[in-house]
């Protein structure tokens, strides 16, 4: 990393007040990994709690706070910032040949807001009566709860501001700051995917913002937006919430797919299979469909029958654009020259995890089957496969992939591979077993399952899997630390990629390139020519 010639004070000033998109990105990464670590710790504690019937290590109130923090921090603090904060900020200017983002100061502001959000979220563990309302914060419970719902609302609002600022900034960057000759038709998949994700953020974040604001007003100012006794409607919140939060799933999924596309293309040294269809059909299709399916979160919530069946059909149709993307990823392997470095292993792992996660989404999409598996461990396993684990695999794979570039050091390949194998095994034990626990009827968000003692063996298996997973993450962390302190210097283009970000020095200096590259004859996927 950057040297600290002027002492620690100057070093800190340089980083904290930085407006360089690469440093902003790395600070985003540090914040989101911190959220990941704490939220992961919560997950481990919850798994220990669930490993046996009856209270094991804590009481229900504490458990609910852990669960709240795990969900909220993983989504709002880890996945969205890591993808739309770190990867988008760090990578997009490099991939489109820009010297920086369009509004560097706005970028710094969004970073600080994000850090404020992280601090606010972490205050959960300090304040009396921490929120215990789950990341969904359904009223009336979020209003009746003794916990301080405001911490949730303000975390969401601040993170929302951060991501709107980031979205405006990066969309502008993509539109106006592409290098000469960098036409729309030859952008990296990651750029396309992230841009779509930011459009979703810009459209839908305000709705979540109003919903959580109304929750806080109901709780603290005595309004009755969601109180049925005074003309409010309980169910409306769920509609508003999922109207944002379902597209939020694609805000996470799209950049995840983008990273996987780029990793696969680089390590298979192959063109993206059917690039145009992947962009317009896949990414565009997801953009179109994502806003019209949110009722599938409310299949058992007492919505009218006709709308549930209608959204069942639109939900099933999601498989079309997502299927096109998967087809393109797998097609990119065809006639490639695949090298199995750590990032590629994560990409391959992603394909399999995403297959399991995506296909188990089909019974969940069918309203009739969902009635039973809704709000059970089955759905927990499903979204962990598809979002949490596949997403995290993509993030970790992406970090390994760009590690040489942004740190200037190579990581240890053996450590990286060991880490992959252990996490892959751990993930599959944890969440595959969880499917079966869910099918036995274990509801989610349970502190205890005294009424279903027969599930103890299954739950224990899940907990063992979680421990293997934790070991895997530790090894990944060790491999990164090892690389930081003892890694060999990295060459400019260790993977032989043709993408633009690899043409600059390692690590890229201020301004990324001495002069803006000419991209007239450039093709990020121009292999085999």
């Amino acid at each position, binding site marked *: 990393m950057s040297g600290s010639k002027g002492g620690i004070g100057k070093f800190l000033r340089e980083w904290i007040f930085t407006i360089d998109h690469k440093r902003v990105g790395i600070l985003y990464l540090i914040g989101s990994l911190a959220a990941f670590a704490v939220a992961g710790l919560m997950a481990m504690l919850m798994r220990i709690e669930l490993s046996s019937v009856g209270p094991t290590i804590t009481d229900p109130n504490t458990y609910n706070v852990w669960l709240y923090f795990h969900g909220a921090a993983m989504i709002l603090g880890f996945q969205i910032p890591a993808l739309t904060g770190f990867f988008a900020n760090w990578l997009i200017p490099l991939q489109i040949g820009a010297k920086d983002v369009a509004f560097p100061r706005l970028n710094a502001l969004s970073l600080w807001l994000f850090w404020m959000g992280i601090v606010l979220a972490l205050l959960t563990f300090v304040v009396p009566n921490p929120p215990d309302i789950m990341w969904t914060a359904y009223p009336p419970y979020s209003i009746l709860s003794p916990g301080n719902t405001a911490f949730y609302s303000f975390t969401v609002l601040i993170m929302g501001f951060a991501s709107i600022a980031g979205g405006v900034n990066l969309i502008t960057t993509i539109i106006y700051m592409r290098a000469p000759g960098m036409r729309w038709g030859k952008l990296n998949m990651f750029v396309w995917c992230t841009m779509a994700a930011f459009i979703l953020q810009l459209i839908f974040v305000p709705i979540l913002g109003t919903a959580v604001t109304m929750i806080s007003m109901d709780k603290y100012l005595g309004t009755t937006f969601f109180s049925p006794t005074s003309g409010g409607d309980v*169910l409306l919140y769920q509609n508003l919430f999922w109207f944002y939060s379902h597209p939020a799933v694609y805000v996470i999924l799209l950049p995840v797919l983008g990273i996987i596309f780029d990793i696969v293309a680089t390590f298979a040294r192959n063109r993206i299979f059917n690039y145009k269809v992947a962009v317009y059909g896949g990414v565009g299709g997801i953009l179109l469909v994502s806003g019209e399916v949110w009722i599938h979160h409310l299949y058992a919530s007492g919505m009218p029958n006709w709308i549930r069946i209608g959204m069942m059909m639109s939900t099933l149709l999601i498989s079309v654009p997502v299927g096109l993307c998967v087809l393109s990823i797998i097609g990119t392997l*065809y006639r490639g020259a695949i090298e199995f470095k750590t990032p590629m292993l994560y990409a391959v792992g992603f394909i399999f995890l995403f297959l399991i996660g995506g296909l188990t989404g089909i019974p969940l999409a069918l309203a009739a089957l969902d*009635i039973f598996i809704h709000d059970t461990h089955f759905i927990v396993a499903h979204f962990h496969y598809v979002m949490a684990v596949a997403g995290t695999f993509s993030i970790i794979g992406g970090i390994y992939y760009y590690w040489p570039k942004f740190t200037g050091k190579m990581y240890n390949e053996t450590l990286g591979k060991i880490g992959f194998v252990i996490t892959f095994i751990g993930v599959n034990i944890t969440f595959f077993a969880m499917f079966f626990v869910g099918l036995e009827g274990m509801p989610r968000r349970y502190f205890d399952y005294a009424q279903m003692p027969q599930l103890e063996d299954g739950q224990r298996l899940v907990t063992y899997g979680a421990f293997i997973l934790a070991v895997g993450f530790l090894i990944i962390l060790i491999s990164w630390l090892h690389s930081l302190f003892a890694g060999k210097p990295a060459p400019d283009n260790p993977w032989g990629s043709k993408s633009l970000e690899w043409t600059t020095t390692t690590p890229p200096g201020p301004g990324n390139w001495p002069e803006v590259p000419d991209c007239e004859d450039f093709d990020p996927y121009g292999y085999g020519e």
Partner: protein
Amino acid sequence: MRRRFYPLLSLLMVFGLAGLSSAQSEGGHYPTAGAIPDIVEGYNHLWREVMIDITIIGILFALVTLYFLFAYRRKRPNQEGKPVKLSKAAMLGWAFIPIFVFMADDLYLGAKGWTLWNTYRTPPENAYEIQLESAMWSWKFKYAGGVETYNELRVPAGKPILVRMTSADTIHSLFIPDFKVKEDSMPGRVTYLWFYPKEVGEHLITCAEYCGMLHSNMSGKVIAMEQGAFDSWLASEQAALTEGGA
């Protein structure tokens, strides 16, 4: 094209949102059916079919991926892939054929799911109706005639049961795993579910919507009794009620 996209999108969404957020209590429309269909059997049947379907798709994709990973591994350090140049027709073919295949599968499953969904939401004509009022953290069942039970849903076996639900405080969800049914209960709206206990027996009831501290302790029992036993139980409860009230 792009200009038309956003108004269209927003229109779609607002329409959606209007419809959906609104539709107040469906309180009334419980379409009814004559014969008693079996939810559990329908569920198991559809589940098996979906599992076969997704297993085939999954294995197919996985095998192709594995084959590619093996067949196209890098053999020389500087080897590059030999990308296929798709003609326009091939490109569209690789778009529309998969789209049609996916959509065909979706529609097939959708049609199957639709039938079962109607079964789920269409209580039989002669269903025995019981009212539920959930509260933190207990289930209160009210029978016609004013008999109330807590956490014990006594029902006559061999008769479809319709549960009409509201909630006193927050959202709960009546979940009876054995009968594969679940529906939220909430204040201000009336929701319903129905199930069909064919035989005498006990089944677990549990809460599936997060409702605070004792969410996981909010369990109860469906007790399916012989019709005669049920009638005499209800009568005795009722007698006790009038005695107590007088």
